[in-house]
């Protein structure tokens, strides 16, 4: 049984390896024009249509095809963490003024779908809405741009962004896939207009939106990237039930979904459809976090927290779980593979990553005994989503039982899950940590204490940690930044504040006639469909 499973996985890995990430030169075919792409969005639809205000991928998957952005991760190389290209600008600027000023030249001749011209004024207005939202307007990623001082458009073709201090985390932040460029005219009329309406300058124009059901677009003939979009149009269907999505791909009711399907779906589709299915896989800039509530006894004791981490065998666990859940790689607080991430050797020094699990668990038991908590019992607060939350939760409870800890799961829907964490009414929580563009320095901000980063639910204080982070934020030399990052991560682990458990893994099976799309570590990226074509 096991050997069969492994050899099946072997074949899949081979297939995946041939088709997968980071190989922009692999496609030598010429794109064909025409056809309608039908895909599914694994959610019920976001609350509003305004990308600036929302955080769920459902909004991106539904609306990104209609909009342009200023800069973005290169759609031909989306798994790169450093390859940013222009969408609306003409070339990537070099920062002047000691890294404090970025001057962007905006393309000429870009039109909104209603015919009005797009100028630097629209770009500046949209970005000001994101960074300096007016009262009553919500901007979900405001915090990512605290380094921005001003955004101005001195003329119709230039946008100037001035920073308060130079930092490595600005440019990746600017490539935010939610940062749609809206029409200044519409924004002036009504700041909330884009919450219920769609009107952009992207590769597709809105045809129809049926609440909770589907959204349809057709080619924008005035699109400024030559030749694109190849598709005549697209249909996106909201389909929150996973079994339905897998069946739909199997029966070609839809070509794919852009988030991720679990390994079982991949196996099933490959087995049944053979070469009619191609699969792309990638590490994902998402993971689960074990967060003990420092305000609750006995989790105020660093020994107890450390014991929790030491009990977990991440290496073997990730390997086994990767067969049934969308997880794979073990990593620290930085996305594995990026320049600032810990190497395997560095990881293995930290609690929760020891290569010798028996030693690790013995140490855990010793710490528990020392702290007087041999019979520790508690509740793990978890979210009511199978992949991978509940699976990870079930696995963690089993791991903890191996050092004598008796934990149970309290699984709640998203609302009470947030509520429990925000109010501090939990023992240990299983959180999610999803970032969009890989922006390591900004991404690790979420490990800062609650007083600095409000959404950290560990409820601890650690001035030393904050100090290291501040230095790192303002450091422009990447090798020095890496040293500081190691210090930062080691500090967090020494104090056993929170533990990252298994990075998620994206598996995107699709009908093999879908070409042009390349997977990336983030399911928010590369969703405007402009470079997709159908080989049929």
């Amino acid at each position, binding site marked *: 049984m096991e050997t069969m499973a492994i050899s099946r996985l072997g074949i899949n890995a081979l297939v995946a390896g041939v088709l997968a990430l980071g190989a922009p030169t692999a496609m030598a075919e010429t794109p064909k024009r025409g056809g309608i792409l039908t895909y599914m969005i694994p959610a019920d639809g976001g609350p509003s249509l305004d990308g600036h205000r929302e955080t769920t991928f459902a909004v991106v998957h539904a609306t990104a095809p209609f909009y342009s952005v200023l800069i973005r991760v290169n759609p031909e190389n989306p798994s790169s963490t450093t390859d940013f290209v222009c969408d609306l600008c003409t070339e990537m600027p070099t920062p002047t003024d000691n890294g404090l000023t970025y001057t962007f030249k905006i393309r000429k001749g870009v039109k909104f779908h209603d015919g009005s011209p797009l100028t630097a004024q629209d770009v500046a207005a949209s970005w000001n809405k994101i960074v300096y939202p007016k*009262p009553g307007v919500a901007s979900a990623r405001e915090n990512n741009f605290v380094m921005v001082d001003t955004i101005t458009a001195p003329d119709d073709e230039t946008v100037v962004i001035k920073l308060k201090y130079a930092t490595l985390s600005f440019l990746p932040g600017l490539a935010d896939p939610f940062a749609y460029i809206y029409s200044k005219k519409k924004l002036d009329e009504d700041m909330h207009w884009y919450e219920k309406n769609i009107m952009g300058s992207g590769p597709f124009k809105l045809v129809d939106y049926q*609440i909770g059901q589907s959204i349809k677009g057709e080619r924008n003939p005035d699109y400024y990237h030559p030749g694109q979009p190849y598709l005549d149009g697209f249909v996106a269907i909201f389909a*929150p039930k996973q079994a339905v999505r897998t069946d739909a791909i199997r029966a070609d009711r839809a070509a794919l979904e852009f988030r991720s399907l679990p390994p079982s779906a991949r196996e099933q589709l490959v087995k049944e459809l053979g070469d009619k299915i191609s699969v792309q896989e990638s590490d994902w800039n998402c993971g689960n976090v074990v967060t003990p509530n420092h305000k609750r006894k006995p989790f105020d004791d660093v020994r107890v927290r450390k014991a929790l981490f030491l009990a977990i065998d991440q290496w073997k666990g990730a390997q086994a779980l990767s067969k049934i859940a969308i997880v794979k790689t073990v990593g620290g607080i930085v996305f594995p593979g990026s320049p600032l991430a810990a190497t395997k050797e560095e990881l293995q020094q930290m609690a929760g990553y020891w290569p010798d699990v028996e030693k690790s668990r013995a140490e855990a038991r010793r710490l528990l005994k020392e702290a007087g908590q041999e019979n520790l019992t508690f509740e793990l607060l978890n979210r009511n989503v199978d992949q991978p939350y509940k699976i990870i939760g079930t696995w963690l409870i089993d791991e903890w039982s191996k050092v004598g800890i008796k934990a149970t799961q309290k699984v709640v829907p998203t609302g009470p899950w947030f509520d429990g964490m925000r109010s501090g009414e939990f023992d240990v929580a299983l959180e999610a940590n999803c970032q969009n563009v890989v922006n390591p320095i900004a991404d690790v901000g979420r490990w800062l204490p609650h007083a600095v980063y409000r959404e950290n639910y560990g409820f601890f204080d650690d001035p030393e940690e904050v100090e290291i982070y501040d230095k790192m934020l303002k450091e422009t030399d990447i090798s020095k930044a890496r040293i500081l990052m190691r210090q930062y991560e080691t500090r967090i682990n020494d104090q056993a504040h929170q533990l990252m458990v298994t990075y998620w893994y994206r598996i995107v099976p699709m009908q093999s006639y879908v070409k042009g799309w390349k997977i990336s570590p983030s399911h928010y990226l590369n969703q405007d469909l402009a470079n997709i074509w159908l080989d049929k």
Partner: protein
Amino acid sequence: MYRYIFKRVLLVIPTLLGAAALVFVLMRLVPGDVCVVRLGSSGGTFDPKAIAQCHAELGIDRPVVIQFIDFVWAFLRLDFGTSMWSGAPVTTEIWARLPISLEIAILATVIAIAIAIPLGALSAVKQNTWIDILVRVFAVGGIATPSFWLGIVSLLIVLNFTSAVFGTPWMPPIEYVPIWQDPIRNLAMAFLPAVTVGYRYAAVSMRMTRSAMLEVMQEDYIRTARAKGLINKLIINRHALKNALLPVVTLIGIEFAFLIGGLVVTEQVFNLNGVGRLFVQAVQNQDYTLSQALVMLTVTVFVVCNFFVDLLYAWLDPRIRFS
């Protein structure tokens, strides 16, 4: 009779009010905050300013009693407010999803009646024969089988069967088109869910038909008819079935209102954009206005159905009709 009708109408009001109060209280007891859910989905960030703003926008920072009075008053004016999750009017949200749910409910009813009455009557007439036993097991099976399990298994069977026989697997469409636009596609989508929901509905109706028929067949006038030598078939069709139908119709009327319970789960299985699925979403998103409106809708349908059934009884029962 009119006094009876008037009294029944009067009874409807406190029931609806009581239901409204219960719904209101229940929704507010549910822990969680719609603004939090809305602004922070998967590890995203949100700030307390935005949340306070959201609260004020939605009016959930006002005293509870005021909110309730507002709710009832608005309900009377048929103004159901806006969904707290999406900001769209509740009527729009529900209206967009009503067609598919209604279609499945009606289809399920048709299927149920088409199966239940003939089979139930047959089972009663051939009582204690193997036909009776078969029908009874079939009926109890319908009550014992979880509708979502039936849905999962039936989808599996359809997929595997078409794959084996035709080479390519076929599954019902996942995108809804109204019946007047593309009737075949529409029915292809609605058929399997309707059967899944209808099976239980048919089972309950079948049992009721059988027991009602059995009771009627004991009646003296049937025995008299038999003694007179009338053909059995005539007796059944003309006399027994007609009189047995009254409790059956009652049951069908009442069960129709309960269909929404089956829809809640079935729409998940088949990925249907219906009212049942909307309800689950609304509860999960802590969307008070939407959940309230949906539950009130269900309750109103139930109460109205009951009311009409009572009216039917009143009309058919001479004691009340002629009083």
